[in-house]
């Protein structure tokens, strides 16, 4: 075996120019802080605007039919699901600093699996709620004139069909492949610690 002292000397001989100085790391920290504030503010603004718009529709618009109210309710549920997903993505692994490598790998794997379940089940529920909500909500506005009814529902159904049968399967497949690969990677690295 090569002498460990020699290896340590070689290891420590890394050229000095490689490491950023404290000033540049301080700048990075400040940039990170700004980015973080912008990110959180954007999500918060999005929540406020969406909440305001939905609230306005529910309170101001005096619907005649129960289907409109059900539609509104379903769309609020879909928005809630979307928001919980966004906030969850932002908070994910934000401040985990004192776990061992083994614990951290387990956490990453659990996170990936729960994301996997979310993508597969909860998001589908969100899509269904949004689609039915839209169809029900639309009815009151177009029911008076046949041509409005036909055009309105044709366009909405076409849009839902494109989302459900073309866009969503493609996006989901890409995401699932990526998630599978990440879980596989994590399992492989976890195995190394056991042997």
């Amino acid at each position, binding site marked *: *075996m*090569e002498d*460990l002292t*020699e*290896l*340590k000397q*070689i*290891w*420590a*001989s*890394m*050229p*000095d120019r*490689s*490491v*950023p100085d*404290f000033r540049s*790391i301080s700048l*990075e*920290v400040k940039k*990170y802080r700004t980015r973080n504030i912008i990110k959180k503010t954007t999500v918060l603004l999005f929540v406020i605007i969406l909440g305001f718009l939905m609230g306005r529709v529910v309170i101001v618009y005096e619907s005649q039919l129960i289907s409109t109210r059900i539609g509104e309710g379903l769309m609020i549920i879909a928005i809630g699901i979307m928001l919980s997903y966004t906030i969850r993505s932002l908070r994910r*692994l934000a*401040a*985990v*600093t*004192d*776990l*061992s*490598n*083994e*614990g*951290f*790998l387990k956490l*990453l794997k659990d996170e990936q699996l729960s994301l996997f379940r979310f993508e597969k089940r909860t998001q589908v529920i969100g899509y269904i709620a949004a689609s039915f909500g839209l169809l029900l909500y639309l009815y009151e506005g177009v029911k008076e004139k046949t041509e409005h009814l036909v055009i309105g529902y044709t366009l909405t159904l076409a849009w839902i069909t494109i989302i459900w049968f073309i866009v969503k399967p493609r996006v989901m497949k890409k995401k699932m492949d990526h998630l599978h*690969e*990440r879980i596989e*990677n*994590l399992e*492989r*690295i976890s195995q*190394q*610690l056991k042997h």
Partner: protein
Amino acid sequence: MTFEEIYKQYSKKVFRVCLGFLNDYDRAKDVMQDTFIAVWQNLSKFREEANVGTWVFRIATNNCLKAIEKSKRTDHSNLVMDIPDIVHDNAEAKFELLHKCIAELEETERIIISLVLEDLSQADIASIVGTSDGNIRVKIFRIREKLAQKIKDYGGFN
């Protein structure tokens, strides 16, 4: 300890560990920056009874694992040093060869040998990795043997 003191004391060490693990200067720099951002973020929560060095290395190695977890499985056959062509003298050639050999080890082996070369105690390495003292001793022995064989296969340092 202030953030600046921690940075000055550990930045080079953390960078070397990240470089040993990722074998890529730019990614190592990114992971090192992420590590110190996490240190800065959590400094107020850091429990004084723990060793600050162990804590910093734990964050760094977890960030390395996160970085590799995001990327595709490393193909060792393509790992011919992403380190810039800086071979000006014998010392740099040795440094490059050592990194080349470490890059060919498995992920967790790269972390363990980097921490060994940073002179951390076996107990500290065991706590960072999350395994027992006995297990880490055996692992270090095996990794040293494996690394020695690789160095030998490349003709050694002379």
